[in-house]
């Protein structure tokens, strides 16, 4: 079982493969001898691949690693097994996450956790490049989580609001008239 890393919108499998005296990496089915040694300054390293050493700058934030190699920066995201397992375990159609269409800032939030909202109701307003965009509920739902706070900034695709679809009305009205 290996690890997945995302680079330039592609997923690559990387397995650690021990050998006498060290560890190899199997990257996308290619076995390489790799070693990372500290460089001359904080953030600066030497990446040795099959005996050839090069300068590299690295900074990480959680699962994202920024790699500056040969004058260009690359963003590599570790897709860890826990995340994959969690996503696979989520019931299909249970929750819906509204995500940001582009990077921006949260300007205002009009609902809180637990609120019942109608289709088309304004949940929050975000701003990007000085344009404000309303985030509306796509259908009647209950707010499970407001993922960010006012003035928080986010990237494209970031989770904004998690909604739970309303339960369907039971034939005998036993649900108490929750849905609209």
């Amino acid at each position, binding site marked *: 079982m290996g*690890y997945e*890393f995302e*680079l*330039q919108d592609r997923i*690559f499998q*990387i397995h*650690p493969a*021990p050998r*006498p*005296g*060290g*560890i190899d*990496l199997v*990257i*996308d089915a*290619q076995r*390489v001898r*790799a*070693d*990372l*040694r*500290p460089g001359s*300054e904080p*953030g600066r*390293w030497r*990446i040795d*691949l099959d005996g050839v050493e*090069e300068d*590299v*700058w*690295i*900074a*990480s*934030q959680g*699962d994202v*690693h*920024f*790699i*500056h*190699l*040969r*004058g*260009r*920066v*690359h*963003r*590599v995201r*570790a897709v*860890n097994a826990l995340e994959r397992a969690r996503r696979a375990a989520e019931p299909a159609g249970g929750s819906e996450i509204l995500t940001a269409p*582009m*990077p*921006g*800032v949260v300007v205002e939030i009009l609902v809180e956790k637990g609120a019942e909202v109608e289709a088309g109701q304004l949940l929050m307003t975000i*701003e*990007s*490049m000085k344009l404000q965009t309303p985030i509306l509920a796509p259908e009647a739902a209950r707010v499970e989580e407001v993922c960010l706070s006012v003035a928080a*900034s*986010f*990237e*494209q695709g970031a989770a904004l609001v998690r909604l739970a679809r309303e339960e369907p009305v039971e034939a005998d009205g036993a649900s108490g008239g929750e849905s609209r």
Partner: protein
Amino acid sequence: MTEIPGIRKVLIANRGEIAVRTARTLRRLSIASAAVVHDTEAGGPAARAVDEACPIEGASPVSAHLDGEQIVETARRIGADAVHPGYGFLAENADFAAAVEKAGIRWIGPTPEVIRLMGDKIASRRFVAEQGFPLAPSASEEDEPASFPERARAIGLPLLVKASAGGGCKGMQVVREDAQLESAIRIARSEAERYFGDGRLYAERYVESPRHVEVQILADARGRVLHLGERDCSIQRRFQKLIEETPAPGMPTDLRERICEQAVEIARAAGYRNAGTVEFVLAPDGGFYFLEMNTRLQVEHPVTEMVTGIDLVEQQIRIAAGEPLAFAQEEIRFEGAALECRICAEDPEQDFAPAVGQLLLVRPPRGEGVRFDGGIEAGQRVTPAFDPMLAKLIVHGPDRERAIARLRQALRETVLLGCTTNAAYLERILAHPGFAAGQVETGFVSRHVRDLAEPDLDREERERILAAAALSDRDFRERAEAIPRPHAFMGAWRN
């Protein structure tokens, strides 16, 4: 003890890299420096660059920097002798300039009347035309709104419909076919009203593949006007400049002299004072037309400073203090070539969408002839609240070819981690044979969009990047170390 009598303290009404840059000159001249700082930037590079960081309040940082009343009150309270507005925000706001002067504080820039005249596109073009200078054929809506579409049509295609009060890329529509004119007017007007609160339009002939050439002007209170040479700012994307340089590549000497002379005459006719820039559109046939005048310091002023050795902010302060220009036109020397590129928080792979993130590592390049003007540091959050420009990288060389090589090297050595930037894209522009040959024009990046796309990584490079990431990933390392193995391998991992 200040080097400029009468100017003991200056308040910088700006932020980011220009505030840091202005503070540097103030310090060199032993002038006390202050800056207005919004609490989201408390303790940041600009706040630390000045002697006094003065808090200003506002619902958003931008609104705080646009609160003229609060800024004037701050200047008065701290006893500032002068206000330097930088660029953007209120730098070309005549009312703000007037309010500063009314408070008995010197405005580092031209008079409010000149800002009003030359800051308004319609008014400045009318003025320049009246003075007999050439303009691109145009039509202003103000003259007679009803006949505007007709008169616009008469200019000939292709044409540009623009907001009169506008700047940057907002409120501009290119019309290539007659059928597009009506909707272009509608869209431009709606953008103009939204961004500038003023829906007035004008139309002008759109020169295909034009070059954008501008001239730096300095004028003192005695009416002496000099030029400090031209800058070519043709490398733009959606009307935002990316790369600027001086001298303009491949420009015949006599054409350069005529453009610079004309800029001086326009500034003189307008009664200009302090630093300013006159912008022209240069057509492929060598004809040039007045575009607009910027009544402030420009973002790309450093390239002029690198070739002339003159500190423009220092000149601005001296002129504001009432000093006459200390040199004559003939005494100004232009040495070598300089280029600047604007490093922005944008993702070229996502159609240049603004990028956000936290800067994890900032390591500017160093070396002879390399200047990095940034107002950024590790730990800082990059948000869409401000302009996406993070830093300017400026390089000087004995000639254009060597300056380009030096700039490419400096870009590769610039380490900015945590937020996506356009640095690699800028390097691809500089590496392009068309750029090297000086074939610059405002359509350059669109024309070469395929050449400028991010190249694929070859397998070896990709492996190296992935290996570096995997070996940096704590979860991966823990997992790898947990693998049972027959031989001990202590020492293979070093953190």
